[in-house]
């Protein structure tokens, strides 16, 4: 297992290097050159001089690359002049608010998705399956930001059940439990939109893999032994059908992040989405590229974690 772990980690490193190289190349090729790309457009002369020094911008390209790689290796993903702080710090400051939406949505989507997938698989090609599969296809096709708009329209404007925007009620000075409840009330609609978005791929994969597993011999054996169908499905088959579900969740990091960014925009949620919007409007490339690199790293790491989980759950894989 240890050798496998070492091998997989080593395989991930070139991917990370390639991501950094692509970012470097894009910044180099940008109109206006790397200085504007790295430092933004609204700095003064002294700031530009310091940026030129910091990134060695008056040196030849291979030396610039070396400087850039060195900085990235030390966790320096650029400096946002607009925010007056390192880009990475700006991103990490906003991350918790975004995770506050992603985490509950992911848990809900996993539970509902696996449940719906199991239901569909048990009644494969029957009416229930058609309903679940149809809903899944529809869920794939609905853009999350449009769903967010519809939820606002229905539940915030018309029924007035939930707040339209924001994370807290600006008029309330509640603390403790009341403040937490206030945040929870603001979370309902964005989390619902995200859950629907995350749900579709999970339900689809859960159904497909369970249909496969239910056709396996050991399931037939369990049935032949006289176990009731629900027990076979939920106790024996589901466990083995979970591997592809874990994979699809692990493979969706980028999709989950972009969904969160779009949802936050509709609900004016103070997370990564808001940061990204303001950075885009100000052409604050340090922040934009820092977010790109960070999310790619998250994709690589989650792929790695899924592979390791796989190997831990299924010993056959380590020797493949």
């Amino acid at each position, binding site marked *: 297992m240890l050798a496998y772990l070492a091998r997989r980690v080593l395989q991930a490193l070139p*991917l990370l290097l390639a991501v950094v190289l692509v970012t470097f190349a894009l910044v180099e090729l940008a109109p206006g050159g790397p200085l504007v790309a790295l430092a933004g457009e609204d700095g003064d002369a002294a700031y530009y001089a310091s940026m030129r020094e910091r990134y060695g911008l008056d040196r030849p390209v291979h030396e610039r690359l070396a400087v850039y790689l060195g900085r990235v290796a030390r966790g320096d993903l650029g400096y946002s002049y607009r925010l007056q702080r390192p880009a990475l710090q700006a991103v990490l400051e906003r991350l918790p608010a975004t995770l506050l939406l992603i985490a509950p949505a992911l848990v809900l989507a996993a539970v509902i998705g696996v449940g719906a997938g199991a239901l569909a698989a048990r009644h494969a090609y029957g009416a229930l399956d058609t309903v679940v599969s149809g809903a899944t*296809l*529809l869920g794939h096709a*609905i853009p999350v930001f449009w769903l967010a*708009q519809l939820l606002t329209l229905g539940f915030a404007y018309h029924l007035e059940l939930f707040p339209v925007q924001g994370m807290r009620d600006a008029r309330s000075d509640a603390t403790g439990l009341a403040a937490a409840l206030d945040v929870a009330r603001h979370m309902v609609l964005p989390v619902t939109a995200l859950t629907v978005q995350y749900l579709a791929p999970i339900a689809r994969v859960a159904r497909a893999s369970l249909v496969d597993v239910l056709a396996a011999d050991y399931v037939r054996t369990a*049935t032949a032994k006289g176990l009731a169908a629900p027990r076979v499905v939920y106790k024996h088959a589901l466990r083995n059908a979970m591997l592809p579900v874990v994979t699809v969740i692990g493979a969706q990091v980028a999709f989950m*992040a972009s969904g969160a960014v779009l949802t936050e925009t509709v609900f004016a949620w103070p997370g990564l989405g808001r940061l990204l919007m303001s950075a885009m409007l100000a052409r604050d490339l340090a922040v934009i590229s820092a977010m*790109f690199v960070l999310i790619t790293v998250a994709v690589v790491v989650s792929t790695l974690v899924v592979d390791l989980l796989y190997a831990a759950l299924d010993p056959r894989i380590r020797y493949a």
Partner: protein
Amino acid sequence: MRSERVAERFGRARAPRAAPSLWLGVGLAALVVLAALLAPLLAPGDPFAAAGRPFLPPSAAHPFGTDDLGRDVWRAVIHGSRVSLLVGVSVAAITLVLGLAVGAIAGFVGGWLDDLLMRITEFVLVLPRFFLALVVVALFGASLGNLILVLALSGWGLTARVARAGVLAAKQREYVLAARALGAAGPRLLLRHVLPNVMAPVLAYAALQVGNAIVVEASLSFLGFGDPNAMSWGYLLNGAQAFVRRAWWLSIFPGLAIVITVLAVNLLADGVRDRRVASASNA
């Protein structure tokens, strides 16, 4: 076939029926393609020009109402189909060619070239396309050309993997061995004998790319970073955001247009894949 055994086991002897959903996909896709082709007839006039008073609700004169600038939403939605299809089809076509070329060469030639191409494919697969597209838009400006290019260059990974797997499997089939024994070799063997048999799954992935690219384009335009000269559904939803409460029609119709289009291409992709499974199990 496995799924039939399941159906039997759980009391249903019916085989999977792909046909109705496939035909639904064909019908919806035809609707969207017709809207794009006949846009000047269905909704004559410049979609950016004002056509009436602002915020008119849907009526006979303006079936989808008018927006805050008095522009006709029906005209905008119909013309928007052109932008969505242009982006979706161009991206899918480029990823199809790129993915097929990379996957086929990797699988057919093998060796170090296979290793190299698959490492590159792996890299393309980890790229978060939405965020990459934002970086490109921020650095190089928002235009449909830039968008198509970045989505295509970052979208061929799965197609390449599927093509490679198909070529590897086909290489072992008797008819390919027979063709090889008869003297076919190199590009001719690949193009005439191997490739035709890997096209079905590759086309299914290409169809998925259409929907994918349309959603990313709509997402960027919704954030306000799409091509400012293109009347797209995302752009309309961006405009709707500030007026959802006052004018629901600004949000409903462009959103429905996206859903119908993406649903159509995904149904088509599923249909192509199911047909392949069906024909494979009959063989």
